[in-house]
């Protein structure tokens, strides 16, 4: 059962490929095209390569794989495309084919395997973070950073640089149910995420608290695992499906909404209906997914004035993946005294893109450079963005370039203005 270089299952969507009219409107929106100016590293060129593979004109070669792996999966091209090409899906399906038939560099496979084998498993991650916390608190981190040793291992340096200061290695525990305060609006399930849960446990706490204040009873299932987003983007589709089924089951206890505070998780969860085609529960689940900013934008919250100048970076998987741009800004603008300065090219990828910044360091660095200089132009001292990957990436970029800004999730800034 072959179609050119591809085979079943998860064949790249042929109608999606056909929808591309090769107009090129996506080109200037594509981060890798912006940096390289090459057709095969643009969305139009990548679709053309996928099409050529389906037609049997090219094989899944190392070069083919390289151009598809260099894509950040930011989906800015989908926002730009008037013909509605489902690029994100095409990319994931093609990466699925690459996983099965392709030629990935050994170092790429090793790093991806390491990260993807770590993040979704709370137990493994917790054990690693215990070591990391020890590394930070013992003063070893200061010594290592000062020594310049990391220059010898650039990939390790990339990972090391992303580490935020960990308060305690122990995951903070949230109750399974938080009651609603004030007028009850419904029951919301909170997705804790992987990066969010271990690197930014405060964000999950604050999300639960704000949801409660907004009138939601918050269900936080203990047994929830990863949403599978990282696996999906890497083309490990079966693994992604297993995680999706697990998460759906974890929230099966009757929630009205499923709330994500990480754009990457929310975006992937909205696609469960597609990836688990034929499972009505998956479709139902996807329809219930909300980003935290959607629920808080018009909620009744007791906010007091706070003098702060902030700027907002659009996470790709919020702006492009979920088409949510207005709500996070509206939410910030509700804080009396807050001045929101628009960030130029706010929806251009910061280079984080899941585990991309570990796999494609050079491209990720060039995009981060661009993002940091745009942030510097705003003069804001606070950068707000609703995805933990972006928070880690931008914080590191600013720190390394000596730009004194604080990078926060919207709920963190909002919580500071709470007069409750």
């Amino acid at each position, binding site marked *: *059962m*072959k*179609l*050119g270089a591809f*085979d*079943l299952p998860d*064949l790249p969507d*042929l109608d999606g*490929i*056909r*929808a*591309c*009219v*090769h*107009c*090129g*409107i996506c*080109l*200037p929106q594509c981060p890798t095209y912006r940096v390289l*100016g*090459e*057709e*095969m590293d643009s969305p*139009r*060129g990548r679709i*053309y*390569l996928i*099409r*050529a593979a*389906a*037609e049997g*004109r*090219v094989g899944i*070669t190392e*070069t*083919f794989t390289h*151009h598809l792996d260099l894509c950040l999966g930011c989906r800015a091209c989908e926002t730009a*495309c*008037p*013909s*509605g*090409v489902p690029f994100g899906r095409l990319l994931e399906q093609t990466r699925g084919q690459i996983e099965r038939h392709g030629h990935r560099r050994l170092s790429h496979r090793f790093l991806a395997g390491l990260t993807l084998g770590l993040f979704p498993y709370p137990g493994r991650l917790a054990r690693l973070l215990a070591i990391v916390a020890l590394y930070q608190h013992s003063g070893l981190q200061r010594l290592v950073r000062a020594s310049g040793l990391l220059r010898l291992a650039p990939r390790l340096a990339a990972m090391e640089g992303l580490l935020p200061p960990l308060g305690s290695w122990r995951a903070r525990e949230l109750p399974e149910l938080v009651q609603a305060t004030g007028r009850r609006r419904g029951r919301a399930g909170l997705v804790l995420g992987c990066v969010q849960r271990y690197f930014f446990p405060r964000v999950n706490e604050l999300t639960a608290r704000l949801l409660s204040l907004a009138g939601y009873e918050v269900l936080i299932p203990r047994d929830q695992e990863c949403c599978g987003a990282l696996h999906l983007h890497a083309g490990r589709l079966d693994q992604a499906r297993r995680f999706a089924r697990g998460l759906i089951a974890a929230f099966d206890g009757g929630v009205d909404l499923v709330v994500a505070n990480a754009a990457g998780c929310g975006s992937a969860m909205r696609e469960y209906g597609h990836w688990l085609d034929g499972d009505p529960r998956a479709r139902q689940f996807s329809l219930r997914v909300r980003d935290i900013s959607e629920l808080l934008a018009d909620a009744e919250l007791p906010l007091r004035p706070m003098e702060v100048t902030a700027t907002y970076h659009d996470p790709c998987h919020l702006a492009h993946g979920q088409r949510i741009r207005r709500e996070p800004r509206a939410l910030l603008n509700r804080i009396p005294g807050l001045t929101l300065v628009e960030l130029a090219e706010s929806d251009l990828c910061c280079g984080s893109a899941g585990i991309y910044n570990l796999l494609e360091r050079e491209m990720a660095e060039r995009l981060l450079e661009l993002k940091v200089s745009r942030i510097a132009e705003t003069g804001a001292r606070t950068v707000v963005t609703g995805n933990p990957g972006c928070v880690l990436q931008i914080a590191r970029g600013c720190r390394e370039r000596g730009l004194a800004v604080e990078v926060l999730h919207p709920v963190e800034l909002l919580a500071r203005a709470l007069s409750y």
Partner: protein
Amino acid sequence: MLTPEFLRELARIVGPAGVVATPEGRLTYECDMHTFYKGAPDAVALPTSAEQVGEVVRLCLREGIPVVPRGSGTGVIGGAMAPRGGVMVSTTRMTRTFEVDLLNRCATVEPGVINLQLTHAVKDRGYFFAPDPSSQMVCSIGGNCATNAGGPHCLKYGITVNHVLGLQVVTGAGELLWLGSKARERVGYDLTGVMVGSEGTLGIVTAVRVRLLHLPEAVKTILAVFSSVEDASETVSAIIAAGIIAAALECLDEPAIRAVEEGIGAGYPKGAGAVLLIELDGPRAEIEAQAEKIVEICRSHLALEIRVAQDEAERELLWKGRKGFAGAIGRLTRNWLLQDAVVPRSKLPQAIRALNAISARHRLLVAHVFHAGDGNLHPIICYDAEQPGELERAMQANEELLRACIAMGGSVTGEHGVGVDKAANLRLQYGEADLAFMARLRQVFDPTGIMNPGKLLPSHPACGETLSAVPPQSLPQGAWV
């Protein structure tokens, strides 16, 4: 095929990261927006300076290798593809702005600068770059020069050649020249005029000195809805007869409206037979008076609805719909052919009727989006290459459409250029002596014929050169289940 020594030499000039030589990479350069015509280059060079372009051209000249310039690859005439292989020179890394001289209202930029980005760079200071092809959010200024691009607003402001003061070019003989000057007056031969619209057959543009215009004091955009394209085009004739020079007068028919609404959601009324997008700009008092007159004309021509954009956001959305149409064609069809014929404005209603009759006879959908004010038609013939026989019917209809327009006193192309798509059609418009003279002019710039061979001029039958289209590749269907 290029020799390893040649590729090494190329890499020496533009750097190893500036050469694309893999089969996969080259494949993605085998066509521009008109995917009907395919021809992959043997290598792609991505130079970053005029000097590098010069060295690449001289290297190719020495070895007798074809040179095919390419900007953003948004053309619709098969101009930026390599029917005979050779080296494609992509200008996408030449994006510097050398000078913005607002006092003298001009700017000097490299050819890879994107059209709309130039306007964005000077808009805050009250200026803009007038040529605005629909692809302006992605097309390059070098490409605009190559095709002498137009756009909705060229009705009032003129086409690219009217906005180019000077050009730096590398000719097919390998010389680096400056044509034109900062002043609008041209001394001696108007070589800028010769170069603009030459589609890379004379040389490669390496820098452009463009005119910038003052933004108008006020802009008014009107959307008028009609039940038929005929009513809309009668309205256009009446507006022009009334002596009003609109900044833009655009028409979209029902299928085009459908595509725009599905793909962009610009607020055009779905199901309507046609809409006219009318823009006025200039001194506020003047355009207020003109707008009143236009509304009156629209009413008397049976407009169903007349909407004036209330703010800049609404105006931008209306234009986003018009300009995004080409990208939304995928909502209508899998494959298409496109004409760019110009008919005298008075013949617009008649031309539309004739074109619709032709496409109906061939049982194909045709969508119309046209610059009504100039009589510049863009009939898009929709077909599905995977259906047996449709391609042949589409090509037949395409040919008949063009002949019908020429018979009405029209021209082969309005603004897209000639490329390979319309090269043979040039004979419909010019005599042998005219074409022979153009070929001699081409030889002056490009004595050995390395520059974008096979484009613009019809090939001489005696040379045995035929530029047959490669039929679109089909995705096999059903074969694998």
